[in-house]
């Protein structure tokens, strides 16, 4: 059963401890009754969880980040599917250049991107709007969606489409009834990665957010620079719980392997 040697076992254990320990500590701290960040040992309290609901700013920011994540992931997906279809199925001169362009947000430093986005939004006069932020985030999360869309389209058996056409389906029907369902797991996986990336993006967003459009990570960051109440821990704990729940649901629905690794069923 156990094929790992003792060294590998130590490595994996340390790896998991380092991954999980900070999260565990944050959740633990969230239950302190005191007014500063401290690991509770004798007394426990939900005080800082209640505090979240009394702080409208955080609630607003949460909804904003949620909406921004959904909007930008969906926008990126809507652009990535046709782009990936073209990139995967046709060979043309600009192909390599386009792939590089779509994936470039991965390699451009976030600070540079942030400044560029700010300049761009100012030019268009949409600074501090939800639309402007969604646009920037869509560009930023594009690589994640495109990579997974490309992988699933390349891996798809094209004769299924030919079969549909031979049975009388138009190109539109073939795409809707055959292609889309067959690449859906990859698309959902890409969307989820994009959503997560957008939801906790800080560096780029600091440049383009305004007092009326402050995302949750930006508000947490601002909060920490001024005070250090355990509300940051309780908010983090809530987000951790929500993420775990979302992952469990996705795993149930599609299987995480299939979504994120792109393995075949």
């Amino acid at each position, binding site marked *: 059963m156990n094929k790992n040697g003792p060294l590998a076992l130590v490595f994996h254990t340390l790896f998991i401890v380092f991954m999980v320990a900070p999260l565990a500590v944050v959740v633990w701290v969230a239950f302190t009754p005191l007014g500063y960040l401290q690991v509770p040992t004798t007394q426990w309290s939900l005080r800082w969880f209640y505090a979240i609901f009394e702080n409208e700013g955080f609630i607003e920011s949460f909804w904003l980040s949620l909406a921004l994540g959904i909007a930008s992931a969906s926008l990126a997906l809507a652009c990535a599917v046709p782009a990936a279809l073209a990139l995967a199925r046709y060979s043309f001169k600009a192909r390599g250049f386009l792939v590089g362009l779509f994936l470039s947000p991965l390699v451009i430093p976030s600070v540079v991107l942030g400044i560029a986005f700010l300049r761009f939004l100012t030019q268009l006069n949409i600074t501090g709007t939800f639309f402007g932020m969604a646009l920037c985030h869509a560009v930023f999360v594009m690589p994640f969606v495109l990579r997974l869309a490309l992988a699933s389209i390349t891996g798809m058996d094209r*004769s299924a489409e*030919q079969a*549909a056409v*031979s*049975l*009388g389906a*138009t190109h539109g029907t073939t795409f809707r009834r055959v292609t889309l369902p067959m690449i859906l797991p990859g698309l959902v996986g890409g969307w989820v990665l994009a959503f997560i990336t957008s939801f906790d993006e800080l560096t780029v967003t600091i440049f383009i957010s305004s007092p009326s459009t402050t995302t949750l990570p930006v508000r947490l960051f601002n909060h920490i620079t001024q005070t250090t109440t355990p509300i940051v821990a309780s908010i983090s704990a809530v987000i951790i719980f929500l993420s775990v729940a979302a992952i469990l649901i996705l795993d149930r629905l599609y299987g995480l392997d299939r979504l994120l690794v792109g393995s075949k069923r």
Partner: protein
Amino acid sequence: MSFLNLQEISKSFGGFVAVDQFNLEVDKGEFVSLLGPSGCGKTTTLQMIAGFLDPSHGQIMVGGEDLTARPANQRNIGIVFQSYALFPHLTAAQNVAFGLEMRKATQGERQEKIDRALDLVHLSAFRDRYPKQLSGGQQQRVALARAIVIEPTILLLDEPMSNLDAKLREDMQLELRSIQEKLGITTILVTHDQNEAMALSDRIAVMNEGRIVQVGKPHEIYEDPANVFVSSFLGKNNLLAVEVEDISGSKASVRFNGQSLTVPCREGVTNKEAWLSIRPEKVQLTDKGSGLLEGQIKTRVFFGNHWLYQIETASGEFLVYSQNTAVPNTAPRDAVGLNWQADDARLLNMDAS
């Protein structure tokens, strides 16, 4: 007038000619195989008939109508792919239903036709399974049902058996042939398996390098191959270099090993040097010193219903199949004579044309 008529169709990719002036006439209800080695243009030809590739030249006529420019989704042609190409997110019945939905068939008509098609391929019990819950053979039958349920004018099969194991393949071949005969559907099968082509087809078109080399009934081209390529591709073949002395009509007298033999000869054999081709099952082992050729048994393999002998002769290695007669009467390293009826040999040009 034939039903399907491929007139001089060619297809080139860039400068490469994949299919070259392909001519074929297929009658209604006929089962024709395209047989040839890998890369000879079989799939390309099939894709042009289906409408997935446009011919560079030529015309595709079906029932007197020109189909060449018609879109693939309006040709009413059924296709079974090598990979089956089932829709993985639909059940067996839904896969079969797809073509009927595209034809806007009514609910009742749809049900009835799906039932009949699944029944025909013996899959009624599996109608609600998804492709991944079916075995390879079952998936293949769903693919067949999906292709025939739309009552296509032509059924195209691109190496449909190549993913099945030998036993299952034989069963499916018999079943495919009986379904095809029952429905009377004009069928074109692409294969590089000569046994499959011979077992299933009314006629075989042997292809090489984008061209048709020979068309005919299976036993005709097996017994009377047009050239060395066809002869070697359809089963095993012993080739003996001979000197042509004289040709008169369909007979030629040839010389080898200092002896003369009068053998059947096709038109077109002109050279002085030619091959004499003899099928392994047409050769008999005789006593040493009494054959047309003398040799020594190198290996002997038992196949149940027959023996395979490899025999060293002065003119190269010979393959011989001989019927299993319960008692093996020869052993390796025995010296034997090889004999055959002069009429069973064929004279062929040395180059493959």
